[in-house]
């Protein structure tokens, strides 16, 4: 077991979940901003996690060091794919709310808000939290395995 690789893999997973939480909180914070005429306003974002081979991923995902640590002789034919985060606009349609007294209302009395679905963002945050905990549990287990391996032959000396 190569414990350095296990940690790198869990770290990549945790980075994805953290990105998810950041994007969800950004969407929620901007959920009620008004889109004035002539400006684009806030575009809701979403996170796409793609599985990339380790040597193609960005250094932020720690994947280059994972690849550098691979011993070709021992791992021929075993490709590690790590999640790679891409953040892009979700393309959700803005929602129009009828508020004739609002100074930013258009000719028909509608005010446009970004198409952020609060319930969806909350659920994605909860899912990201559980996934993050699972990744942390995986990393702690890998660490416990390595430390127990050190105990072979007696706890000390």
């Amino acid at each position, binding site marked *: *077991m190569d414990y350095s690789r296990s940690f790198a893999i869990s770290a990549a997973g945790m980075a994805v979940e953290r990105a998810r939480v950041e994007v969800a909180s950004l969407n929620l914070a901007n959920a009620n901003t008004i889109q004035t005429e002539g400006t684009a306003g806030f575009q809701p974002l979403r996170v796409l996690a793609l599985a990339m081979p380790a040597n193609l991923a960005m250094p932020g995902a720690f994947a280059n060091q994972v690849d550098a640590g691979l*011993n070709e002789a021992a791992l021929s034919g075993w490709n590690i794919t790590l999640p790679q985060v891409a953040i892009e606009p979700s393309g959700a349609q803005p929602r129009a709310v009828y508020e004739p007294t609002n100074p930013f209302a258009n000719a028909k009395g509608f005010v446009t808000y970004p198409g952020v679905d609060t319930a969806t963002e909350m659920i994605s945050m909860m899912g990201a939290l559980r996934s993050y905990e699972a990744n942390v549990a995986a990393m702690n287990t890998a660490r416990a395995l390595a430390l127990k391996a*050190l105990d072979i*032959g007696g706890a000390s000396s």
Partner: protein
Amino acid sequence: MTAEAIMAVAPVQIGGVADGASMDAASPALTAQPGSALGPFGRMVSQGLDAVNHDLVVSQTDLQELATGNVQNLHQIMIRMEETRLSFQLFMQVRNRLLEAYQDIMKMQV
């Protein structure tokens, strides 16, 4: 040092092994006089010494690999180190018993 230290403290000449042996750890093969003064017991002991030396060298190279950052098989390294330690201690006990036996014999009044 490993097997050199043993030979340095063990005055027992087991079939001429101590004389002709160059216990350099770089050459684990024992360079004893080929079979001339070695009885079967001497050969057995020298084979055991070879095995212990080989184990020690293997655990040293394992530790060097760990130091240079090759951490593929941590459990393998620990298992081999424990085996090395046990075989080394067994060899030390064998050497102690042989020494005691030799001293017992030398105490006998002619």
